[in-house]
Structures are given as structure tokens and as C-alpha cells.
């Protein structure tokens, strides 16, 4: 019995970690490189734990992932939190039961990555990029309501199916 208790106690933090789905801190262009290797739609949301409008829209992104995961749509989060605060990102998401793939932008404090995200991006978060088969197809600066987000993505997905029809 004692052994089991010890095992459980040891497992607990590991289980916590698994639930917290580690947030890797990577330079932004490395995150972009990862996205470029993915098939299907990747919705990349730029946010930070301290950004109120960002946090307010996270549930919509979770809902998006939940409803469209089967249809080849992935939702990734990239946090622009300070490097000194990056260890807060994973617990922040875990405590709110968000399961989206999560990254931290290691060079967020720098200014170079903003242009890399999109020339139209002013630097104000939240902002969302959408990639299809690794290529950026859309950029949106500002927060989404749930309806707006779903409509935005639905629009991009229907655009694709039209293209596919044309290629026949």
C-alpha cells in the first residue's frame, strides 16, 4: 500500500506536466518552420497571459480545436510573455483546461519577429495567423468573438474547397 502511495505521489507531478502540455520556448522563425511542416489548416494565435483580450478569446480557440480537430484543423498558441515569465504559460493554460499546442516566443522582446509574422501586423496582440499546408493564407489583428472566429475559419475552409473544384 505504502509503495503505491509513493508511486502515486511521484506520478502526480508528471501527470500534471502531461496535462500542462509543456510550452516550448522557441524563436519565432523556428515556430514558423514547424508550422510550415504541417498539413491542413493551422490556426496560430499570438497572445500573452497578461493580455486580457487575448485570454478572453482563448475559449473560442479551444472550441474551434474541439469541433474541427477531426477535419484536419490544428490550433496552436504562441505566447509573447517575457522570457522571465515563460514558465507561467503552461500552468496558466493547464489550470484553465486549455489543450491547444503551446509555444513561447523566445525572441518576443525583440522587434524583428513582428515583421516575420506579417507586414500588416502592428505588434498589438492578440493576432491570429492561418496556414494551409504550411503556407500562410490569412492574418488577423485583434480579438475575435466566437462567431467571428468560426466565420473567419469557415470562410478560409470554403475558399479551399472552391480551389480544389477549380483544379479538376
Amino acid at each position: 500500500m505504502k509503495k503505491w502511495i509513493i508511486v502515486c505521489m511521484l506520478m502526480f507531478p508528471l501527470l500534471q506536466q502531461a496535462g500542462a502540455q509543456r510550452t516550448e520556448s522557441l524563436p519565432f522563425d523556428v515556430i514558423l518552420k514547424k508550422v510550415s511542416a504541417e498539413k491542413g489548416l493551422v490556426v496560430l494565435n499570438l497572445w500573452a497571459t497578461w493580455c486580457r483580450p487575448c485570454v478572453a478569446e482563448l475559449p473560442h480557440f479551444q472550441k474551434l480545436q474541439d469541433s474541427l480537430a477531426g477535419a484536419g484543423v490544428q490550433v496552436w498558441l504562441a505566447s509573447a510573455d517575457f522570457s522571465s515569465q515563460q514558465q507561467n504559460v503552461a500552468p496558466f493554460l493547464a489550470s484553465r483546461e486549455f489543450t491547444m499546442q503551446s509555444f513561447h516566443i523566445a525572441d518576443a522582446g525583440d522587434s524583428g519577429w513582428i515583421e516575420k509574422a506579417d507586414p500588416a501586423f502592428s505588434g498589438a496582440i492578440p493576432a491570429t495567423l492561418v496556414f494551409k499546408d504550411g503556407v500562410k493564407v490569412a492574418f488577423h489583428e485583434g480579438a475575435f468573438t466566437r462567431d467571428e472566429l468560426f466565420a473567419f475559419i469557415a470562410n478560409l475552409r470554403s475558399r479551399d474547397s472552391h480551389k480544389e473544384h477549380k483544379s479538376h
Partner: protein
Amino acid sequence: MKTVFSILMMSLGITAMAQGYKVGSKVKDFTLKNIDGNMMSLENGREAKGAIVVFTCNHCPFAKAYEQRIIDLNEKYAPLGYPVIAINPNDPEAVPEDSFEEMQTRAAEKGYTFPYLIDETQDVAKEFGATRTPHTFVLQLEKGKYVVKYIGAIDNNAESAEKANDKYVEKAVDALLNGKKVETTEVKAIGCTIKWKKG
């Protein structure tokens, strides 16, 4: 129908946001309330050679990270003719921490030596095309009119002043003081969105 309408409104919103000053724009005079209760106009500072207008606020972590650097900019450049003018563009109803009273408290605590103005109608922020805090505009007085010479980030590292080794605003002002052209005229940076009034 509702979603089409929202998307239409969103795109209009985005277009509206894209307006604002560019490098070379002449700045319209503005008059805003300062933390000392007095109204202050841009064109008050006639002995100045220019100004460093910073849209900033109390609550945003990026603004906080830059607060000391903003204070330092004023210390260095006000005597040289380029004073800092800080403007809080946020809706205090959205962010109570950015209320006028809180601005006064903060300025007193930190010993601000520059005007900290409240943009109550948010018209000045819109006129400038400010989108976030902090968002800096370096202006030079040319024949009685303030002209925009630099827009954007203060330096290349929001998180750490020590690690910031490319100080865009300082470089811009130094160039202007030496009668030279500003080489890097625009640098984007991350910041908190401006909290626009609803409706």
C-alpha cells in the same frame, strides 16, 4: 447575415485602424488634460525643437517595462529640446487602472517629470494611428509645425533595458539634433492593444 455583417464591420474597423500619421506627416495640434489638471497643447512647447510623444498607460506590462526608459528619455532629451509627452489613450471604463486618478498616483510615485495626458475621446490616438502601448512618435518642429520623423518601438528589447542594444528613439533624436536624416524611421514592437471605447 449577422456574421457577414460582423465581418464587414471588422474589415471596416481594420481599415480605420490603418489610418494615422506616417513618417513625414504634419501633426495636428491637440489639447489634452494633464495630470496637474491643466490643459496642455502640443504647440505649447515653442522653445522645443521637437517632442517624443509616447502613447502609454499604467496597466500594460510592456508599458511598465518601458516606464523607466521613458523617464530616462525625458531626462536626457528635454534639456536638448526634445521633451517626452506621454499620452494615455485607454478607456478607463475598460481598464480602471488607467483612470485619471491612477495616472496622477503613478506619476507622483515614479516622479514623472513630463506631461502625462489623458486622451479622453481617444481622438488623438486615432489621429496618430496609435495601435498599442507603448507606441512612440518622434516629432521635429519644422517651420512652426511638428513633423513625424520616427514611429514605433523605443528599443529592441522590451523585457530588458540592459539587453536593449539598438535604441531606435535615441538614434532618431540624436540624428535630428545633429541635422542628419533618421536612418531607421519605423520599428514595430509588441504592446497591449489600445482599449477603445465601445459603441
